[in-house]
């Protein structure tokens, strides 16, 4: 750990501690993992380099592999946390830290629910409608034809979910309704976590 801390300047470390939920050790570990993703010559200024999405996805927490993915939400996570103007979903070190901060132990349930809403909103329209929910459930149950719910079951499930969470009965779930449901869900905080 001594080697990487000399690469990450002290005031940057202090600044990141102030701006995220992570503590010093976690930031240094994140830095180490991030710089391993870069080719050797770019490691010096890891702070300012953007890593293309394909590289990010080699991290075990987000890794795809020939036929299976460990994390079905990897694409959405990259999309939500990326601040790249090109829209290519590449992530800089700060985006990476952002992601780890939101997924850390110390993050509040409010932050987690906001970002969860953005991750689950597959079409980025600001609400969760039936199509978003369908894609969400398919992500949960896995890839492959035999791993999907039948259309009747899917309809029944989406109807049940909307019945439980859609307060104003408009057929979609907006951010407030989502946060309300999440606040009463006991498992959310413990499952919305990534441990490096």
């Amino acid at each position: 750990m001594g080697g990487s801390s000399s690469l990450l300047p002290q005031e940057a470390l202090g600044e990141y501690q102030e701006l995220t939920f992570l503590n010093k050790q976690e930031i240094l570990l994140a830095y180490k993992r991030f710089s391993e993703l870069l080719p050797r010559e770019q490691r010096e200024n890891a702070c300012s380099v953007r890593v293309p999405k394909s590289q990010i996805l080699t991290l075990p927490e987000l890794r795809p592999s020939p036929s299976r993915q460990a994390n079905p939400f990897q694409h959405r996570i990259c999309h939500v946390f990326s601040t790249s103007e090109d829209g290519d979903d590449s992530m800089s070190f700060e985006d990476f830290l952002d992601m780890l901060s939101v997924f850390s132990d110390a993050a509040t349930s409010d932050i987690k629910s906001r970002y969860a809403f953005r991750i689950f909103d597959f079409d980025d329209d600001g609400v969760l409608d039936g199509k978003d929910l369908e894609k969400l459930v398919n992500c949960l149950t896995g890839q492959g034809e035999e791993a999907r719910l039948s259309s009747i079951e899917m309809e029944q499930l989406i109807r049940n979910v909307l019945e439980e969470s859609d307060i104003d009965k408009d057929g979609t779930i907006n951010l407030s309704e989502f946060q309300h449901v999440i606040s009463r869900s006991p498992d959310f905080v413990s499952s919305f976590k990534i441990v490096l």
Partner: protein
Amino acid sequence: MSEFGAGAELPGWVTESRSRGEFFSPEESHAAAPAGFLQELPSYRSVLRRRAAAGDVQERWGNLRGIASAERREPQPDGGERGAIPLWELPFSIAEKRRIRDLQQGDIKYSSGWNHWKRTSSKSWKKALKDIKELSSYMQLWRHDIHSIEGKFGTGIQSYFSFLRFLVLLNFLMFILMFSFVTLPAVISNYGIFNSSSTKISPNNTEPYCTVYTPSGNKGLVYFYTYLKDLLTGTGFLEVTVLFYGYYTIDAAWFSVLRYNLPLAYLLTTFAYLALSFVWIIKRSVERFRQHLVHDEDQFQSYCNKVFAGWDFCITDLNAARLKHRSLLYELQTNLEEERLKQKIAERTMKEKLRIYSLRIFINIIVIAVLSGCFYSIYRATVFSQENSSNISIVGFQANLLVQYLPSIVITSANFIAPQIFSFLIAFEDYSAAFEIRLTLIRCVFVRLANVGVLLFSLWSQIHCDNDQCKACGYDYELYPCWESAVGQEMYKLLIFDFMIIIAMTLFVDFPRKLLVTYCSWKLVQWWGLQEFGISDNVLEIIYGQTICWIGTFFSPLLPAIATIKYFIIFYIKKISLIHTRKPASRPIRASSSNFFFLAVLLIGLILAFVPLGVSIALISSSKACGPFRNFNTSWAIVPYTILEFPIGLQKFLYGIASEAFAVPFFVIACLFMFYFIALAGAHKRVVEQLREQLVTESRDKLFLLEKLSEAQKNSGKPQKARS
């Protein structure tokens, strides 16, 4: 990207054009109502005002975002408000947070000295709190191990290991209590260190034959295996050590001129460790109870919980991920099927209902028969063991050890066989899947805890005596001159055997199974496969051990130390077994409900431990030949004796509290409070339901009116304002 509270928080139904199902025909496209018009609604303005006054977080974020993008909006709350949220809790990216911080610091120059000081002090206070929390988390035992288990296996299994850590700490504290207040003074005064001495008052009013107690410490030449046998059964040389009740035959300890009432300390420390366990478990479960109450009471939330919180982001292992997908699919399908089944059940005919209820009654009778079988066999085994364990010379060493351990062996086999029978039987009872799991668990818990009760009952049936001679002593003085030590030895044997079984199962069952499955490719072996990590089974195992520890500590004060070491070693054994020999669970275990369930069962175990302890302390005559309570009828008798030495006023006060004149009104008032809170909770629930309905009707009304309004505007030919 969606806007976060951009501008003010507009209700969701206003943003895009969507078809509203119920009232309006789908073809009509409802363009977003004119935004400016909405902002004139009185309800909207009052919401704004309320938020600005309360400094609502969302409004502040909206304003901060507005600042960051350099837009002007509604009247801002004053500059002092903005710094109140710590920067790291803002839902923006790091770059934007940096911009906001710079803007804030720019603002700082313009605010008054008082605001400036307030803001910097609150910031440094928050930072200090964060640092302290970080530091205290370093000092947690096994922090890194449990963190890595959570990362690899998910939160369900991690809850088992946190529970184990909690028990290690609890037992360690119990040991510290007992050691410092009972064992240490006894040892110091017996050996005369620090100018101390102990006094032994010989008991009066008892027959002399009651007081004869010669523990058979090893004298002369003995075989080596005698030491081993003594170590495993607590007899022989162990019987006279600090480990058992018999050592503490001291009536008072003198440290220079201070008199230390050891018997009173012994009794009070017992109450203290029970109270400590009780309070700590309750404190730990209050938080989890709240979650469980929410989860359980609101059955309407279960689908949302599964869909939104179903995926455990901790999982990195591909196999574990695949299994998680499968288990989520299975869970969703079962729940949907259960819903369809519930509808079918509601439509059951009378004849079918009758058939099913009679089947259930029949199976419950079988369950009771199985339980009685277990209890009877434990009773017979204990009686046999107690009667024959003193025939050392006649039978060999191994046979004698077997006889001594017979109750433990029978209990462990009953704990193993009975759950298998129960899970087989429950398939016939035709309950819903969730209820099946719960009922089986309840039955298993009952078996485990009741077995210990039956063991103690059978021990007492032995200790209790019938003929007149021993009635004078109150217990069977021939076989058990020091009966508390005998009970302590039995508890000691149970604990040691439990520990050995866990090690043996891991070494001789799990690892060979893993080797077999890895290297042998027979179909049968592959189908048998690896075992899952059964969380409930493991938890019931350690709760059983903990109940024994609680009961046994009164009779054997160093038992918590043994329990601490036992759980410490079990942590590592289970961890290694989990990593190398287990496959991930196919049935999903919800972390939230598990946590509460473990603590609830632990609490049941503790309350069950109160019963035998209460009976021993208050009802059964204490042994006259050994122990600190020789001069009293029962162990409890020392408390009234001590109270009689208090000043009269205090005595009267204590008697008053214990009398019925105080207890009955106190009980009545406590009941009144309880009913009040229950009524309050019910009323709140009803209010929530009503408000929900009101919300729905209000939004429908608004939509209707807006539709009418835009129609009217269209018809009157006024230019429409720009779409938002």
